[in-house]
């Protein structure tokens, strides 16, 4: 079923048991993003020191796609340099815009290539990007 390409097992796993969910204290910046069309919300705490992502935690309410994506994002970006994190972010955004044409670069995205199927469902791309856009906002404010 076409739907299975959207709801890959690894996505549903992260949805049920999200990583780095629950806001941790001691952050450098906190941002809150929402998706006004469906009401999903993500709050993200981020710390960057010496150009490295030292801490990332988040909380929020939303669909399986938005929550699983925020979960995998925090796994992927923690302990990366700001530059490497930006590369991963760019790769993920590109995957989301690929209209089902890309498998995603597994070397950069690891399990997050499971979101490739989302790019065929235009209404869900914003869900998948919610946490990532919160990160982009927070990190660019910190590095400005």
């Amino acid at each position, binding site marked *: 079923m076409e*739907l299975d390409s959207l709801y890959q097992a690894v996505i549903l796993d992260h949805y049920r048991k999200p990583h780095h969910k629950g806001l941790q204290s001691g952050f450098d910046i906190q941002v809150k993003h929402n998706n006004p069309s469906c009401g999903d919300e993500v709050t993200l705490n981020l710390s960057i020191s010496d150009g490295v992502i030292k801490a990332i935690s988040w909380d929020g309410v*939303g*669909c*399986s796609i938005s929550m699983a994506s925020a979960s995998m994002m925090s796994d992927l970006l923690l302990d990366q340099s700001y530059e490497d994190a930006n590369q991963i972010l760019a790769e993920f955004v590109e995957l989301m815009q690929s209209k089902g044409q890309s498998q995603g670069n597994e070397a950069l995205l690891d399990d997050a290539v499971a979101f490739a199927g989302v790019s065929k469902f235009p209404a869900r791309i914003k869900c998948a990007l919610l946490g990532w856009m919160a990160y982009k906002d927070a990190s660019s404010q910190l590095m400005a």
Partner: protein
Amino acid sequence: MVDLSQYKKDFPILSRTVRGGNPLVYLDSGATSQKPEQVISAEGDFYRKHNAAVHRGAHLLAEEASAAYESARENVATFIGAKAAETIFTKSATESINAIAYSFGNSDSSSKFSIKAGDEIVVSEMEHHANLIPWQQLAKRTGAKLRWFEVTPEGRLDLSKLSDVINAKTKIVAITHQSNVLGSITPLKPITAAARAVGALIVLDACQSVPHFKVDVKELDVDFIMFSGHKMLGPTGVGILWGRETLLNEMSPFLFGGSMIDSVTMTEATWAQLPQKFEAGVPNMAQAVGLSAAVDYLNKVGMKNLHEHEIALTKQMLDGLSQIQGVNIIGPVEIKDRGGVVSFTIDGVHPHDVGQYLDQHGIAVRTGHHCAWPLMRKLNLVGTTRASFHLYNNADDVIKLLDSVSEVQAYFKVKI
């Protein structure tokens, strides 16, 4: 149950297939209804045969276009028991509500429509954003206070504080006729009585009522109603603002331009009579004509039949959903004072994911906050899944929805 099955074939879109190669089960008429061939061709025929700017031009086409536009107005007016002069074409219900809110906000301090600090505007927690934000912003601009009726846990308007909410300071009561989320129909009598007692104006958002059951403005005892053509089998781009003639005569126009004037100099202008006073610019003529065809269609089906049909489907849906484990109905479970809108949640599965699962089976529903975010916050929900009906739906559609809903938790591996 009344048999409306003969009508479905008039709706060309309902014979297409959608995702997964499934036939379309359209359960999103609360957002917008589908259109019968009669409406599509009325709109097309206007462009093919009569297109010209109405109320101007000395040629035959202009005469025909004006006649078609004005007879559309007559037809819509009769449908709601109104006079043509009081029935104003706008672009949508949203525009209608904003228009009167602006008109009130711009009026002279001596006018009965003037809103100032110390005045109160009353809405409810179940308003669509379209009947909340214009009033919220009017209150902000003028220093008036926004008050509201709360919603009971079962999804009805809580009128227990009626005499506090509507009081001597109340200038406007703006309320929905039927909730687009909960399906509950507002008990108008006590509200209009309280508003009349203090001389407040009454604005009724009829977006979810006029398309589904007989509404007669003479029986309502309200001052303004508004609704959109696209939810009642008509085209997009046309809505109605109805107001009492005496009030509309006293109100200032809110859009200025061509067609709405009586006389113009470089420094002054005077206004045309109703309804032109409120219809600046070349209007959405083809859409008005299409709306008239929709009204003809609804009259042919019969609003009483339509309502009975939708109530039967709603009952079937409520009964079915209440038997599925893990499903919670959001809104009254009793059919009394309830329309054909059914919201629900499924434990452990986000509404967006529910909607996606249903879509895979060809079932189109709405998910999310339904432009009623404050209501969602009040009910402590992130959103709901909403199925809503119109005349082309049938018992089979309900069964398909129920079957798919009962599979959702297993698909998302929620432990029951």
